[in-house]
């Protein structure tokens, strides 16, 4: 029973479903929505790495999303660069800005960091909105090209675009998986848990936080660049604080500080919002209180709740097994403990 739920199997299953999805539905609209969800997920992972695993709540991530999107937009539309060159350059730009911002931002802590990034996000939005000559201001950037073909692979159809985004998402998940399950990830978690303790065991918190921040902005920028090339039109609104709040909602509902939280939360909310058209405008009537209730009652979201329920179930079974004299203790309890750590 427990074997089926093994993380590796679950991941493989998810990948298979994701790969087969466009073939199953035949509905290009669904494929479109799913592609958008994947794009958001990448950004949510950026937020998760920083807030969930390192303990720093950044409220500027929509700004970095917008930097990624606008960089690729400006480079292709205005500077006439080729797509992939612009793509890579836009990621670099996001990282460099992320590095500079991080250097200043991490002089502050906790509340100051959140307030600082909140204001920074607003500055980024304001710059995009007001700098007409570069960003076209409120008119927005129109005619961003779709990804150029790589050799024989073309990205003109919705479905090929879907696979391209899926490829990047899987890459991001793989990177996250490896980070979290490594010494490096333990280092970040140690910082989240107690920065003082982390310092006394010789962890350079500044260096690690900065690395996380840059990688986190990289994810946000990647998400933005993919968004721009998928939607082909961007306006200043993509840098607005409400986008950060959206990302945060996806993360919290799915489970902050869990590996699969961004997947669960984003899919769920994006689909719910799509199902309830016209609800979009008032979605925060529900998601606002949900956010608040979650941090009070289920601070680790759906994934956290399910995994702790699962752990309890396992330990109960284990307990019964111990009471009844049986041969060997199965690997289940070890797995359950692993579950707690990984979520």
């Amino acid at each position, binding site marked *: 029973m427990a074997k089926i739920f093994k993380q590796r199997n679950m991941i493989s299953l998810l990948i298979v479903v994701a790969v087969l999805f466009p073939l199953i539905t035949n509905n290009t609209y669904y494929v479109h929505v799913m592609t958008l969800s994947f794009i958001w997920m990448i950004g949510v992972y950026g937020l998760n790495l920083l*807030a969930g695993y390192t*303990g720093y*709540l950044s409220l500027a991530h929509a700004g970095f999303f917008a930097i990624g999107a606008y960089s690729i937009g400006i480079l292709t539309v205005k500077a006439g660069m080729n797509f992939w060159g612009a793509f890579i350059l836009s990621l670099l730009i996001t990282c460099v800005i992320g590095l500079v911002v991080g250097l*200043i931002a991490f*002089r*502050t*802590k*906790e*509340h*100051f960091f*959140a*307030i*600082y990034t*909140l*204001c*920074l996000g*607003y*500055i980024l939005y*304001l*710059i995009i909105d*007001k700098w007409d000559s570069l960003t076209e201001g409120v008119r927005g950037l129109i005619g961003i090209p779709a990804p150029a073909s790589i050799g024989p692979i073309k990205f003109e159809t919705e479905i090929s675009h879907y696979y391209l985004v899926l490829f990047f998402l899987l890459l991001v998940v793989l990177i996250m998986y490896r980070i979290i399950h490594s010494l490096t990830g333990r280092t970040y978690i140690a910082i989240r848990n107690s920065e003082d303790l982390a310092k006394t065991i010789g962890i350079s918190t500044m260096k690690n936080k900065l690395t996380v921040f840059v990688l986190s902005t990289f994810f946000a920028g990647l998400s933005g660049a993919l968004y721009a090339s998928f939607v082909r039109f961007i306006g200043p609104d993509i840098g607005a*604080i409400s986008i950060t*709040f959206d990302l*945060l*909602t996806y993360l*919290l509902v799915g489970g902050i500080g869990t590996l699969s939280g961004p997947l669960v939360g984003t899919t769920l909310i994006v689909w719910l919002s799509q199902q309830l058209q016209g609800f979009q*405008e*008032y*979605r*925060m*009537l529900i*998601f*606002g*209180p*949900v*956010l*608040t*209730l*979650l*941090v*009070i009652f289920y*601070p680790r979201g759906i994934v956290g709740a399910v995994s702790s329920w699962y752990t309890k179930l396992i330990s109960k079974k284990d307990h019964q097994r111990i009471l009844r004299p049986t041969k060997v203790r199965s690997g289940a309890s070890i797995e359950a403990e692993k579950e707690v750590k990984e979520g």
Partner: protein
Amino acid sequence: MEILIQQLFNGLTIGSVYALVALGLTLVYGILHIPNFAHGALYMMGGYITLTMMTKFGLHYWIAIFVSIILVGLIGVLMERFVFHPLREAPPIHDKIAAIGILLFLEAFAQFYWGAEYQSMPTPYGQVVQIMGLTFTMQRILIVVAALVVMLLLYLFLKKTFMGATIIAMSQNREGANLVGVNTNKVAMLTFMISGGLAAIASSLSSPINLVFPGMGQLVILKAFVIIILGGMGSIPGAIVGGYILGFSESLGATYISNDYKDIIAFILLVIILTVKPTGLFSKGGQH
């Protein structure tokens, strides 16, 4: 010269509003160490409630403001009771997210209930007065005077009453206050009540010269944060002085630098402050 005086007066007006909002924010921070991201939503609710009381129920401006103070204060108390109180032992990231949740809800609620369009608030003080060849609107003079009165009353309350003294005591030392028998729950609720009331006053005063809309609190709250970082998180005089400083720099900046970018002045100020001194300008000791 005339432009300068006019702008200084405008700065005084905006600064008064900022100071009132920042005062509420800094009081809550001082007591509970929560940066209340939902404070801007309280400001917005204050504007709408006053407006509704005047247009729907035909109340006089001042009575409408009074109702608004009470209702927004109550929203503040509810927030404290049902959200921040249960989260007092949680990691610091949680109460920030919870506050954001409240903010999102209140804004969506305003949009749902009152609509997304900009509404203007009528005022009995629309007249224009001439003083020494300069024109001032009565409403602006009212803002400046009313803000001063409110601050004076708050000062008297904090310094001269027992309840006020407990608020000060608790903001200086929470555990200590608990030990000497201060009912910290009561103080926390009272602080939220005052904080909400101040936000309602600020928005009710400024709405006739600005407008009422669901997102009206967003910029104000951001600036209020800048102010209390400028003035020292939790510092009451700091919030007042910081409010006026920002008001003046904005109105002068709008005239002499660029009207488009006047809103950015606050944030650039903040970036500079936190770059030079990460714990805020007038903070005592350190964050650590």
